[in-house]
């Protein structure tokens, strides 16, 4: 460890410069590696966070608990405001309830119509938020569930209300959620009821942009925004938020997830429903054709890697 010893005799000077230069090159190389080979770096990162997580767990919880207590005390001091707020909330909830009932009826009708089974294998695991990113460069959080619990890269993370973000980086016992608001986050969505498609692109503000929106026509503030399921990363129809129109005409998304009170997060585990690709058993001989009613259609390209 002679690296940083700093009595500087004129002879050691060159060596010192070389060491410094080497350290600098290492840093730049790491940055480039981070930029190019992001998944690999994320894996290293996840492994390290795994190691750090236990200490996070026993330190962060009391810390956060104390601060929340203080916050609760402060909120005790402004009961009146809170009361107002709650009243507004109740109003909003009532309209929501109305809406939910309507939707439920509609759903029931539609289901009765075609005897459909929705999102056949959608399960979730709930975890606790251990840490946030602790800096301005990333909008993310670390949760205390990981590969051990079936979390995968790219899974959707939800709080009780809506989409929080997506998993990027999974360790054994921890995972990192990149929020919708992070500048690296892009999620394909559709605006209901107009059906216009867009891309929710975070920019580190608390209201992400709605990119690639064809036109604002037929879109009113408060419209629901849900995922499309395009790209196969997220399941469709997860609530993302509501449309907010800015005075300058820009369209933004008000996320449904409550980032300020993010304590528990559920991570969806999706077994994508079987896809029908290629000609199928009708044309290609040798593969049994499964009739409707059976769950799985055979995949003609790779006939059952786990089955055979």
């Amino acid at each position: 460890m002679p690296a940083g010893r700093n009595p500087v005799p004129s002879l050691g000077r060159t060596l010192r410069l070389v060491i410094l230069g080497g350290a600098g090159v290492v840093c730049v190389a790491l940055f480039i590696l981070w930029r190019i080979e992001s998944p690999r770096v994320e894996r290293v990162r996840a492994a390290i966070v795994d190691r750090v997580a236990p200490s996070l767990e026993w330190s962060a919880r009391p810390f956060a608990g104390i601060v929340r207590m203080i916050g609760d005390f402060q909120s005790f001091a402004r009961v009146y405001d809170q009361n107002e707020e709650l009243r507004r909330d109740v109003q909003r909830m009532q309209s929501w309830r109305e809406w939910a009932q309507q939707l439920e009826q509609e759903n029931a009708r539609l289901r009765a119509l075609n005897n459909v089974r929705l999102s056949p294998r959608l399960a979730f695991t709930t975890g606790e938020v251990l840490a946030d990113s602790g800096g301005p460069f990333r909008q993310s959080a670390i949760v205390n569930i990981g590969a051990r619990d079936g979390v995968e890269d790219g899974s959707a993370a939800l709080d009780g209300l809506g989409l929080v973000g997506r998993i990027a980086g999974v360790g054994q016992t921890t995972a990192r959620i990149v929020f919708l608001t992070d500048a690296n986050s892009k999620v394909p969505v559709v605006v209901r009821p107009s059906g216009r498609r867009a891309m929710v692109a975070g920019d580190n503000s608390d209201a992400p942009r709605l990119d690639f929106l064809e036109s604002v026509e037929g879109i009113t503030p408060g419209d629901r925004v849900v995922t499309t399921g395009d790209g196969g990363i997220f399941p469709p129809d997860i609530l993302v938020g509501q449309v907010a129109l800015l005075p300058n005409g820009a369209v933004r998304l008000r996320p449904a997830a409550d980032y300020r009170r993010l304590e528990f997060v559920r991570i969806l585990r999706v077994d994508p429903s079987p896809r029908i690709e290629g000609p199928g058993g009708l044309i290609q001989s040798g593969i049994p054709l499964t009739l409707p009613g059976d769950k799985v259609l055979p995949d003609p390209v790779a006939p059952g890697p786990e089955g055979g």
Partner: protein
Amino acid sequence: MERSALVGAAQDRAILILLAAIALIAGLVPLGVAAGAWPGPDLVYVLLVAWTLRRPGGLDLLTLMALSLLADLVRGGPLGLSTLALIGIREFLLRAGEDLRRGPFPVEWAVVTVLFAALIVLQCVGLWLAFSPRPPLWMLAVHVLLTGLAYPPAAALARLAPPGRVAR
């Protein structure tokens, strides 16, 4: 108090690593996860700089790199650039440190804050060169200011913690 310089340095380093670990974890406590929330101060940076200025024996290049990279990795931001900046800052402070310590504290404080701003700028330039998205300016400004505010306690810590070999 007879103590060899080596033992003193080792002790300084141990204290620094302990404090840096606490600072890192404290910075991660999930309080302001909302995007509009203010970014907290970079506590690890102020500790590293305070140690460079006041206990240079306790912070060799390897420790600095290790701590800085660990912080980068755990926080999840861009990797390596802040370490590069910290190496440069350490070099600068090892040269100018004597004058800074002798001068009035506000000057030292201002210099440390400006150096942190330079670190952030370097990171932004790196991200820009790599076509990566950057956080908005106000957020970075708040980050720099809060980090500046966190420096005096760190400097006091560097002076108060059980001395290994305190710089005169």
